[in-house]
Structures are given as C-alpha cells and as structure tokens.
C-alpha cells in the first residue's frame, strides 16, 4: 500500500454545480495531511466521498488500499471519522453513545470505551446525556468515537471546531502523538489555518472544487514570502534613508516593510543605515508569511 488515501479524478457534480472536480489526492501512511479551503470549496464533499457516503460522479477512491464503493464497502474497521458537526443521540449518555459505536465496530477490547473517555477528558461527563453537552464536549465525544477502535487512519472534518483554546492545543498534541508514536495517518480539513500550519506535514489546498496546491510542509516553508519589518520613531526619515541606499521600502502608519532579497538576507545592513541616519529601529524582524496569507494569496482572495 503506497498511499493511505488515493483518489483519481474524483469528481462530484450536483446538477450544474461542480462541488469537487478531478481531485487527485495522495496521502502517505503516517502523514498528517491538512486539507484546507474556503467554505463551499469542496472539503466536506471530498471527505464524504472518501468515506463512501456519496457516490462520485467520476473518478475513484481508495482508502487503505481498498476501493471505496457502493453499499458502504470500505476498510471501516481501520478508519475513524468525524464529519461536519459531531452528532450524538441526545437522550443517551456519553458512555451509551460510545457503547453503541463500540458494538457497531465489533471492538473486542471491553475497556475501549473507558480508555477514550479518559483520553478525551470526558470522564466528568460520561454519564451526562449528550443532548445537554456543550459544543466543545460534543466535539470531544465525536473525536472519542473516531478513536474508539484505534484506527490506522483518521479522517477528520474540522476537528478543532467548538473547542476552547486549551482544547485546541490538547487535540493538536493528541493527533501529533498518534501520528508520531503509533503511525496513525491523519487527514484533517480545517479552516483554522494556524492549526493546520502547526500540525500538518503535508497540505492540500482546495478551491472551487479543484485541488490547486498539494505540498510538503518544508516546501510550503520555502514558498511563503518573507519580508523585513522595521519600526522606528521617524518613519519618513527612515524610509528616505532606506530609499537612498537602494531599498524599495513600503510603509503603513507604524511599520516599514522591505521585500528585497538583500534586506531579508542582511537585515543588519538596514539597521546600520537607519542608525547612521539618526533613526535607529526599536524593532527589526524578518517575518514569514503565515499560512493564512499564503492561502489567501493563492486562492486570489487577497492580493
């Protein structure tokens, strides 16, 4: 098995709408794959197709080396999933909801439910009805259900949705641990790009149904633009001095930006110029474009 997930020309059309258009995904075992896109870009439709919940209009889907087909055929005992908003039977407790998943997954380990309750910090809510859980705890329940059978592959749609900041960090660390220690492949969609940025080893960007970019985290690092940011007491004098030295300086109300490769490579040169001009910088830093800006630039949402 070369890929944990492989799609070839995966397409889904709803009448005239091309929800997903010729998507070729390749997710290697052990990878944490961040799947990002705007609302309506086709993330959830792709995830539903990966899980055999919708029939592709064209193309094929292979998950863990097995063709995903009609009648829910697929390697589902080895796959954990969370699709869109987590759902649970409201009149059942957290434990009972997990017991149902436990039975339907035919898990031989009798302690599996207790283990995920502990793992997802749900012990205090284990006997509470799911209908009165907060969004964050409902999300934890959804993640617990995805992890219950210790799957080789996790397909998670917005796993950080509804979690508080501490919960976001906790889930990020849990997913990273599963990938690094147990070799679990994680395919996660998210619109919280900082989360994807911190966690993913590979990123796919989907826009208007098409996979417009797929790259490793290292390559993304290189592709992101850098700039030198300078803050000083007299912006106009500083800008004049930098221009005189041949730098193309842009500025807003508080900061000067230098995009030249020379400025990024030797920021001390710019510092010397400013000191000599009598406007020493009180902040000078080479900043890397974040994933959010890269994404917006790539999708044309921001120039």
């Amino acid at each position: 098995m070369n890929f944990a997930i492989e799609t070839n020309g995966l397409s889904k059309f709803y009448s005239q709408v091309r929800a997903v258009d010729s998507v070729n995904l390749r997710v290697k075992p052990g990878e944490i794959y961040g799947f990002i896109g705007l609302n309506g870009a086709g993330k959830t439709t792709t995830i539903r197709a990966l899980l055999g919940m919708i029939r592709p209009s064209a193309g094929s889907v292979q998950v863990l080396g097995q063709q995903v087909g009609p009648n829910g055929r697929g390697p589902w005992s080895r796959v954990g999933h969370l699709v869109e908003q987590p759902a649970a039977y409201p009149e059942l407790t957290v434990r009972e909801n997990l017991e149902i998943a436990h039975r339907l997954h035919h898990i031989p380990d009798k302690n599996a439910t207790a283990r995920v309750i502990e793992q997802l910090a749900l012990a205090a809510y284990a006997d509470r009805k799911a209908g009165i859980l907060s969004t964050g705890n409902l999300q934890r329940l959804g993640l617990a259900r995805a992890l219950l059978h210790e799957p080789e592959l996790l397909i998670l749609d917005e796993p950080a949705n509804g979690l508080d900041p501490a919960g976001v960090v906790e889930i990020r660390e849990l997913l990273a641990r599963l990938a690094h220690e147990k070799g679990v492949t994680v395919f996660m969609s998210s619109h919280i790009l900082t989360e994807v940025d911190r966690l993913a080893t590979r990123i796919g960007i989907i826009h208007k149904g098409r996979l417009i970019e797929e790259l490793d985290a290292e390559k993304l690092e290189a592709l992101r633009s850098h700039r030198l940011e300078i803050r000083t007491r007299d912006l106009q004098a500083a800008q004049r001095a930098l221009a005189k030295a041949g730098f193309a300086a842009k500025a807003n109300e508080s900061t000067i930006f230098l995009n030249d490769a020379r400025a990024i490579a030797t920021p001390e040169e710019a510092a010397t110029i400013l000191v000599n001009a009598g406007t020493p910088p009180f902040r000078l830093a080479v900043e890397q474009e974040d994933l959010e800006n890269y994404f917006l630039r790539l999708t044309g949402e921001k120039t």
Partner: protein
Amino acid sequence: MNVFLSAFWAESLKAHRSKISLLTTIGFLILPLAGGLFMIILKNPEQARAMGLISTKAQLTVGVADWQAFFGMLSQGIAAGGAIVFALITSWVFGREFSDHTAKELLALPTPRWVIVGAKFGLIALWILGLALLIFVVGLGVGTAVDIPGWSLALGWSSFWTVLLTTLLNFMLMPLVAWFASMGRGYLPPLGWTILAMVFANIFSVLGWGDWFPWAVPVLTSMMYGTRAQDIGLHSYVSVALTFIAGLILTFHWWRSADQSR
C-alpha cells in the same frame, strides 16, 4: 448473527431511552380503557346517564355489550389507530437519524448498512407486536373487570388471531413509511404520507375498492365478523405483500445507494 444482534442492541437502547416508547404505550392503552367504558355504558345506558357518564341526549347505536363487540372494537382500534401509532414509531426509528444528524455515523462502519436497516425493522416488528399484545391482554383484564357477557374461549382465540393478523398487515405497510422517513430525512414526510394513505383508504373503502387498497386492508380485516368481511380476499393480502416488498426494496436500496450529503 452477532453483527445483527449488536445492531439490534443499539436500536433497542435508543428506543428504550426515548420518550416515544412510553408515549406510544400510554396513547395506545386508551383503546382498551375506552372500550371498557363503552361496555359499561352499553350494559346500562340509563344508569350511565344518571351517573353523568354520557349526556342525556346521547343516542348509543354502536352495538351491544358483549365480548364480540368488545373484541371488534379492540381489533378495529389496532387496525385504524395502529396505522397511525405504528407509522409514528417507524418514522421515529428511521427519521430520528436524520433530524438528530446521526445517520452519518451509521454509514462508514464495519457493520453493513443493510444490517442496521434490518435491525431497525426487527425492532419495529417487536415494538408493534408488543403493543398489540399489551392492548389485547389489558383488554382481557378490562373486559373481565367490567364483567362483559358472552365470553367463550373460541371467541377469545379467534379475536386474538384477528388482532395478530391486523397487526401483521399494519406492520407490512411500514417499510414504505421507513422509506419516506429515509428519503425525506425526517418525520414529516412519513407522517404526511400516512395521513394521505389513510384518507385514500377511506375514499377507496367508500367507493367499494378498499379490498384492493393496501392501506384499507387492515381495517377491513379487523371487521372479520362485520358485513365488510366478505370483501377481503387473497388479492387484498397480495396487495399488502407487494407493498411490503416494495417498501423493503426501496428502503434497503436507498440506504445502500443514496448520496448522504447532509
């Protein structure tokens, strides 16, 4: 078998914890209790008037106070009321997966979808049978307490089988309700369909074609001792069986193949 039992256990737990199991039981229990009240009134209408149980202007022409009339009331109640209550149960068992957005948790599992659908039908069958038996047993108790005349073991048995047959026929109409709940992703489409089917059942019965219309067959069957009994024949049961098969095929096929995009 273990796979089916696991799915059946899951469905039973959902039903057990829901309020609908209690509500349908209480709702259906009105039937033997109301039947008992009618028997008291029919046994002695003047005394009932004096006690204020009925208006002095009431004209009671529904029949005589005996076990045959009482059983007739029960089986007709199970046939007509059951069509609504059983459809409510079926709509809940299938439709709640969509209104609670839990259907997506049932699709990518090692338990095949057809097993889950089969377990749902198994639960509905047992639930419906349990309700019908409860009504019959409570009816026997109420009838004995009210001291209705005209009891015979043969009548008791034949009424019991009529109740079972009526319940079975009603159950056989449920797969189509399940399909409406699945396709319509909720409660309203199947309940709308049930009301429409009941309206048409009445129209067809009035026109004299009820024996050909599956949704009229359970009520006509429940009148085995009435004047309409002669209408029911093999063709009536075949129409119900065809509806049953069509409902099963549609529901299983829908769960197997339909896009689950919500």
